[in-house]
Each structure stands twice: as structure tokens, then as C-alpha cells.
């Protein structure tokens, strides 16, 4: 739900409560005000009657249907003005109605009279109706006004927010530019911008450190490795005894392994740092066919039969090097961990890439193999980074990788569409 809609709903909800309370207040205020004014009016009427009485011989003549005149003993205390409501027969409506009644005593020509009169009250139903109608009208006006203006205003107020969002979306480590925002009048946005700016600077410097580390690692370590391997190569060809040869062989093999680990880790770091930019449309089917040619011979030697089901011209968007890495790692993995005689089943279509191969039962959960340096057979020559690279490539492209072992068969499925 959009922020503006949430705001509007909350605002309208609060408005309803305020309008209800306000309506009640107005209702009571209005009613008491009317009663008060009616009472006043009746008092004035009584005052007028009292004045008239002074001029009349017989005050009783004034008495009519709404005016009651009672003579009280002259020594009785004066009754001040009082008003209240009462139920009385209302002639024109021909029914009993709630009426307001007011009374006061007067001294007229030395005689003490108590006069009282009543009048029909304005019905509370009428007041309620008026109040409700007014409130509903105001509420509707508010509703329309808010609906229209909030949209316009929110566009204006949230404009810096959308701008910032765009900047964040376009943020790339490659540009090496921290996030910069135009100053806004909104305090919250300013806080957010400040935070994002600091965070991006931090991210860039962290990224730089990691990148430099992996670059230095892959570059600087190559030379000492090359030196060591060269010396060992020279040593191998010098006069040595069998024991020495074995030692040299062990050192030589360890050195080779180190090269491979460094290379693979550097590749993984490159993948994680998104250094492969510039995706192209790649014909996956053709790439697979080309790679398969390279491996034909190896499969022949290991006595592995290949079953393939390649839908022609399956296109994916990927950096060419990455695509090659993906296929090479999958194929070499399937060959490496196969049996002899064994088989590989390869299928590719627009939805997914499936590679199945016969292989030894894994010791643990197969998904463990996707982690770095996890291998099925600890004695094997491989270093256990191949599938990690495959998984990293899948992660970058949002492909879902699934690894299962069912019926003596390792199966890797990569969903190319999600």
C-alpha cells in the first residue's frame, strides 16, 4: 500500500472520531444554547405581561392558554426566574410535546403574582438531523479535498525520496562514486541521505580493500609460487636419490595445488565483486556443444557415455567468460566425480539446464558440496571450489540451483527462468 494511502486512511479515521465527538459537542451546546435563549425569550414575554398588568384593573384578564397567573400572599418571598421543561398538550400538533416552561413572580401594584408560560421546544431530533447533515457534508468535502490534494502534495513532498531511490538503484561499485543527494527541506530525508552517504562511502572503501586484497593475492602470490615451482623443477633434474625425489614431488604437488586454490579464490572474489560486467546474449546450446568437444576425449578415456538433449538456440544473458566458466565447471565436475564406465545426461531448454551423472554415494548432504572446500572424497586431487563458482554465478544471475542425489545419480538443475 502506498504511503500516501496509508496516511489518508489514518487521517480520515482520526477525522471520523473527531467529527463524532465534535458532532456530540455541537449537539449539546446547540441544545443548551437554544433552551437558554428560549428561556430568555419567555422571561422577556413575562416581563412584558407584567408591565401590561400594571395598567390593567384585573390582571386575571390577561390569562390565556399559555399564560398562567397565580396570586401569592404578598409577604411570601419573591420567586426568581426559573425555567425547565415539561410535557404539555400542544394544540396545533394535537399531541403531548416536550415544552419549555418559565416562571417568575412580580410585584404588580402591591400584589404578588407568580406568572408562568411555556412554549414548544425545538426538538432534539431536528438538532441531531442538522448536526449530522452538516458533519457529513463537511466530512465528504474533506474526503474529496484530501484525495485530490494529498496526491498532488505527496508528489511534491516525496519527490526527493523518489530521486534518492533512483540514485540508490543506480549505485554501482564500478563507478566508485559515493551516493550524493540534493539537499531537501524534509528533516527525515536529510537524515536518510546523510546515513546513505556515509554507508556508501563505507561500502566503497570496504569493497576497495577486498578488491585490492584479492588482486594482490592473485598477483603478488603468483611470483613466489612461480619461483618455488621453478626451483623445484630445477631440483627435479639435478642428481638426487629416491627419498629426495619423493620430498620434492610432495612439495611440487603442494605448490601446484596452491596455484589452483589461489586462482579459484581469485575467480570467486572477482565474481563476488561483480567484476564481470557487460552481459551479452549467449547461445547456451552452442556454448555447451563447443565445450563438449573439448571434453569428448576425456570422457572417452574414462569410458563415460554422453546422453544429450539440447534444445537449439537457448539464449541467456551473461558475460561470455562467466558462461564458459559455468559450463566448464559443471562438465568437469560431472566427469571428475563419475564412475568408469559411467554416463552423463545433459539437457538444456529455455527453462532449465540439467546435468546428471552416475557417481559414488555422497557421504553427507549433497548441498554441502556447494560450500567452499567441501568435497565428497577428501583424498581427491580437486580443491573443492568448482561448484562454489557455479553457485556464485547462478546467484549473480538469479538462477536457482538445485543439487540432488537420487538413485545413484547426481543431478544439478539450474532454473534459467524464475
Amino acid at each position, binding site marked *: 500500500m502506498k504511503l500516501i494511502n496509508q496516511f489518508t486512511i489514518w487521517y480520515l479515521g482520526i477525522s471520523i472520531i473527531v467529527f463524532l465527538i465534535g458532532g456530540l459537542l455541537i449537539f449539546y451546546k446547540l441544545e443548551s444554547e437554544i433552551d437558554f435563549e428560549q428561556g430568555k425569550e419567555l422571561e422577556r414575554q413575562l416581563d412584558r405581561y407584567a408591565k401590561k398588568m400594571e395598567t390593567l384593573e384585573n390582571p386575571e384578564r390577561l390569562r390565556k392558554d399559555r399564560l398562567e397567573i397565580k396570586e401569592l400572599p404578598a409577604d411570601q418571598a419573591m420567586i426568581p426566574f426559573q425555567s425547565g421543561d415539561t410535557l404539555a398538550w400542544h394544540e396545533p400538533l394535537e399531541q403531548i410535546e416536550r415544552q419549555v416552561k418559565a416562571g417568575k413572580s412580580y410585584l404588580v401594584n402591591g400584589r404578588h403574582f407568580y406568572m408562568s408560560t411555556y412554549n414548544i421546544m425545538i426538538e432534539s431530533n431536528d438538532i441531531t438531523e442538522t448536526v449530522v447533515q452538516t458533519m457529513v457534508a463537511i466530512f465528504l468535502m474533506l474526503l474529496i479535498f484530501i484525495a485530490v490534494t494529498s496526491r498532488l502534495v505527496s508528489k511534491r513532498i516525496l519527490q526527493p525520496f523518489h530521486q534518492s531511490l533512483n540514485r540508490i538503484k543506480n549505485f554501482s561499485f564500478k563507478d566508485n562514486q559515493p551516493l550524493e543527494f540534493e539537499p531537501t527541506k524534509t528533516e527525515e530525508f536529510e537524515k536518510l541521505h546523510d546515513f546513505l552517504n556515509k554507508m556508501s562511502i563505507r561500502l566503497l572503501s570496504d569493497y576497495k580493500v577486498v578488491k585490492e586484497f584479492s588482486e594482490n593475492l592473485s*598477483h603478488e602470490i603468483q*611470483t613466489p609460487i*612461480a619461483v618455488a615451482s*621453478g626451483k623445484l*623443477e630445477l631440483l627435479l633434474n639435478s642428481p638426487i636419490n629416491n627419498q629426495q625425489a619423493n620430498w*620434492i614431488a610432495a612439495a611440487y604437488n603442494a605448490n601446484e595445488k596452491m596455484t589452483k586454490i589461489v586462482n579459484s579464490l581469485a575467480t570467486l572474489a572477482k565474481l563476488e565483486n561483480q567484476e564481470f560486467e557487460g552481459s551479452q546474449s549467449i547461445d547456451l546450446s552452442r556454448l555447451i556443444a563447443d565445450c563438449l568437444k573439448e571434453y569428448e576425449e576425456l570422457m572417452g578415456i*574414462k569410458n563415460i557415455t554422453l546422453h544429450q538433449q539440447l534444445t537449439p538456440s537457448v539464449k541467456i544473458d551473461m558475460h561470455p567468460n562467466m558462461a564458459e566458466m559455468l559450463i566448464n565447471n559443471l562438465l568437469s565436475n560431472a566427469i571428475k566425480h563419475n564412475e568408469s564406465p559411467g554416463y552423463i545426461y545433459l539437457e538444456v531448454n529455455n527453462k532449465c539446464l540439467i546435468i546428471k551423472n552416475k557417481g559414488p554415494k555422497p557421504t553427507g548432504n549433497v548441498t554441502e558440496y556447494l560450500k567452499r572446500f567441501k568435497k565428497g572424497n577428501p583424498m581427491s586431487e580437486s580443491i573443492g571450489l568448482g561448484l562454489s563458482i557455479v553457485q556464485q554465478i547462478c546467484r549473480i544471475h538469479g538462477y536457482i540451483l538445485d543439487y540432488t542425489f537420487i538413485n545413484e545419480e547426481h543431478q544439478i538443475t539450474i532454473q534459467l527462468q524464475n
Partner: protein
Amino acid sequence: MMKILLIEDQIELSDNITEFLASVGIFCDACTNCFDAQDKLLINSYDSIVLDIMLPDGTGLELIDVIKKNQSKCNILIISAKGSLGDKIEGLELGADDYLTKPFHLAELHARLKALYRRNQLGGSDVLTFNEIQVNPENLQALINQTLLDLTKKEFDLLLFFLTNKDRVLGRQAIVQHLWGDYTDDLANFDFVYQHIKNLRKKICQAGGKDYIETVYGIGYKFNTSPEK
């Protein structure tokens, strides 16, 4: 005798290469920076230049131009730790003949230098002969006592690799790198090397050749010019 100039700033690495090449009969002149390299290029003439990209006073790529101007017949082999495709393409476009990523096997460097030498200086017409074995890299034919061997491309490459590095122990890893390059490197299954060597030996023996290739336990193989049998 082949004469090469090595431009490499890592003294240890440079020593390894010089020593190795000397042991296979290649004269190797070494220097550690662009400045010295330009001097040497003006005075001497070389068959090949082995060039590192990262040098203390510039990049090796800048030197390619100088080399091409002074010694047009000279081969250039770039060695660089930067396995980046960009460097490789740029180097080859500027006129380098081959590219080798560090760390490499000395035997591999030797084989590449020999191949360049054959291709450019000898016009590819060089036939390697050793006792009863004759190998012609141009038409990919190998003969034992004038009988044509039926070799696959990989087996032929393997034989050539052995003949270039006679009497030297070749690690299995060096053989893998030579035959399959960097990509299949991870496939590190030495069974493959074993299979190829087994087939090659069988084919040579069947054609009446001696069994020169011997296994060096735990390390690799060696083309022994004076087999005991």
C-alpha cells in the same frame, strides 16, 4: 644456438628461467627493467624476447613497439601474472606472438619458445629427429624408422613436448597444462595423462621404437634418451 632476451623484474624468477634455459642449451640474456632492455635491444640481436608486463619503469606492452622497430624477426612471448583477457588481447594485438600466464612450468616456457622459433625463424620446416624418431610439427606427422605413427593430436603434442624436453622430468601438472591449457586445469585427473602416455608408448613400441618414456614415481614422466632396456 638460440639466443633470447629475458625481461623480468623478479630476480629469483629470472634466475630460474636463465638456469633452466641454459641447461637445455638456450643462451639467455636477462635484464630487469625497460631502460636496460632498450640498451640490450640496440646492441644485440635475439631470436626471442620473453617479456614481463609489469616492470618497475613501465609496462612491457610499451616495449613491444621498440622491439618491433629494432628487431623485426624477433618473437615476443609475454609472461604475466595478470591472467586478464584484456592484457592478453592487447599484447597480441600489439604484435606479441604468444602469451603465458604466471605461474608457468619452465618446461612449458621452453616448449613455447621452441615452437615460436620453429614457426618464425625456421619457417616451420624444422623436423625434429632423435634416433629412430622423426617429428614434423608442420604437418603433424611422426615417423619411427620411416613408418608413420597413427597418433591423435594430443599424443602428437605429447611426443613433441617430450622431445623438446628430453632427459628432463616433466611433472604431470606440466603435462596437463601443456595438453589442455588453463581451462581444463581444474580437471586435474592424472588418469588422463596416464592414458595418453600409455597409448603413446604402446604406439611407439608397436612401430619398433624404443620405450624412451619412463615414469618418475609420484611426479611425472621423463623422456630418457638412454633407456636401460
